[in-house]
């Protein structure tokens, strides 16, 4: 975007090590100029801790943060640049606009705090608000802004000081569904022109897909998967990532070649056939929700004919989703849990009850093994 100087844009290289009560957060990341990295993970996975470390708010032994040639943190060498001296912009889930200042004064705050005269600071802040399409909100206090507007003002406040690194901590999580879509679009537009590295923290895969160039998945403080957002979501390596798209991931005991494909054996002896083998990553069986077909015994009749390879199980959970009913099935062999989806129009959807015995047939063409 015009007006944003890019001459001094630097890449971020960070080794984050922060001890917490239950586990240590361990994350190595490199983000290039203009690149957006999304840290994806469940609540409490350590995402915000990584951001706090990059902002200089926390650090543990072994932590090292470098922007270009500028060493911001090297705990072992005793190096630490204070948060206010880093020129690192941080946008919070709860916007944290100063309640006693107008939108314009909020945006001008960083400029004035670093010595820009009042008039010039206000002029630059007004330009930044106009650029973000927020010019008519300049005289409102935060209490007079909607959640989405407040978050966009907070972003303008962070950007106007030309940070060398932009950190976004769940910027959309506190918004209602409608505001989230609009604010996500505004965020996408603002980030498109940013010359700085950006690190975005989210637990919503939609943010990763819409905003990020690359994703790192965090689970209990560790990076468990990384790559382009689409690729990560299409090939989940862990139950957490699979849950984001409604699918299932199992750890197989072994994977053997089989006629026309592979067969994975799970603990307890359940066997899953697959036509697709992943080229890399940990051993896994990936079953998208769409790959499972549920069959219910007609009382008192026999099971419908399903061919070989159907898995026996019991319904342990039913969760209505927008377009479909998500059904959790625990397999009789080994107790593995699988998520299947049934369309609301399907008569099975109305019949199913928790505790029902079902059989599941998996489409080998949709199942991936490694």
């Amino acid at each position, binding site marked *: 975007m015009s007006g944003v100087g890019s001459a001094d844009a630097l890449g971020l290289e960070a080794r984050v090590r922060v001890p917490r009560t239950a586990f240590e957060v361990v994350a190595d990341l490199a983000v290039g100029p203009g690149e957006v990295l999304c840290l994806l993970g469940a609540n409490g996975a350590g995402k915000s801790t990584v951001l706090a470390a990059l*902002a200089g*708010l926390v650090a543990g032994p072994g932590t090292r943060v470098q922007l270009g040639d500028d060493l911001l943190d090297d705990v072992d060498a005793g190096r630490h640049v*204070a*948060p*206010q*001296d*880093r*020129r*690192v*912009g*941080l946008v*919070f889930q*709860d916007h*944290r606009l*100063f*309640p*006693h200042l107008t939108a314009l004064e909020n945006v001008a*705050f*960083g400029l*004035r*705090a*670093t010595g820009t005269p009042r008039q010039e600071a206000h002029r630059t802040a007004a330009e930044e608000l106009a650029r973000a399409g927020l010019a008519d909100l300049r005289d409102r*206090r935060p*209490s007079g802004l909607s959640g989405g507007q407040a978050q966009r003002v907070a972003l303008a*406040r*962070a950007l106007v*000081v030309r940070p060398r690194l932009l950190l976004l901590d769940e910027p959309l999580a506190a918004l209602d569904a409608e505001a989230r879509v609009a604010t996500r679009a505004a965020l996408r537009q603002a980030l498109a022109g940013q010359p700085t590295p950006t690190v975005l923290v989210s637990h919503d895969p939609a943010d990763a897909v819409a905003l990020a160039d690359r994703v790192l998945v965090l689970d209990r403080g560790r990076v468990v998967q990384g790559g382009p957002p689409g690729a990560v979501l299409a090939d989940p390596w862990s139950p957490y990532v699979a849950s984001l798209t409604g699918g299932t991931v199992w750890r197989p005991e072994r994977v053997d070649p089989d006629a026309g494909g592979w067969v994975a054996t799970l603990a307890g002896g359940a066997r899953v056939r697959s036509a697709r083998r992943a080229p890399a990553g940990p051993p896994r069986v990936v079953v998208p929700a769409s790959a499972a077909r549920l069959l219910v015994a007609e009382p008192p009749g026999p099971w419908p004919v399903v061919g070989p390879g159907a898995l026996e199980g019991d319904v342990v959970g039913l969760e209505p989703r927008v377009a479909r009913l998500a059904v959790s099935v625990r397999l009789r062999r080994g107790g593995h849990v699988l998520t299947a989806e049934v369309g609301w129009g399907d008569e099975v959807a109305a019949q199913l009850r928790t505790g029902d015995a079902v059989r599941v047939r998996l489409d080998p063409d949709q199942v991936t093994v490694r």
Partner: protein
Amino acid sequence: MPASSSTDRRGRRRARLPLLALVPALVGLALLVLPAVALLARAPWSTLGERLASEAVLDALRVSVTSAVLATAVSLLLGVPLAWLLTVADAWARPWRRLLRAVVTVPLVLPPVVGGLALLYLLGRTGLLGRPLEALTGVTVPFTLGAVVLAQTFVAMPFLVLSVEGALRGVDPGLQVAAATLGASRGTTFRRVTLPLVAPGVAAGAVLCFARALGEFGATITFAGTFPGRTQTLPTSVYLAQQSDPESAVAISLVLLAVGVGVLLLLRDRWLTGAAVGR
């Protein structure tokens, strides 16, 4: 109409006190109100104006207002940073934290006359600091307007400190983090974010502090004496007049009572409700 259906205009249920609590509550209220009523009953209404306009009373009023304003100013200057220190002390080991808090709040429970005596042993002509101070500069503190201000500050500042500390604890620490990431130093953050947000608490504390300073008696009379026109304040003149001229004592007492009630009404409406925050 059954009691449980009693509601006000906005449809809210009216809470009722059981008799067992209502009676002691009313007795307690009477204990607070009746003395003021007795004072009003004894007021020399016909000569009130001329008694209050007497030179002695006007002198005492002038000394009282001047010293209470100065004591409030000193309390603001020293008390706001002290309140800040109290919030920072949360990170200290518990014994030190407790000691600091005890030292700051002890004037609230200490008889003011003891405070005055302690000030005298510190700053009197033979005092711990008073002797070297006089030797070096020739300045003596006791029995001056400065002594009145010091005595009032000693007694009244804790009210301001506690009020400001409470306000500081109410400020979202996330706002201070946000200010830091925008490049603001701790001083700038305090001045431009924290202080404006605690302004209602500072104002409430200053008003309480002023009212307490205006009514200060024990520490003042011990440390500053009662020299008419120099250190005699309204409360000390009440005490002296009570023996020689009781009706004037009542008249001055009415002024002090009116100021006290006025201050509390002002506080309740403007600051104690907290509605001023963010307005």
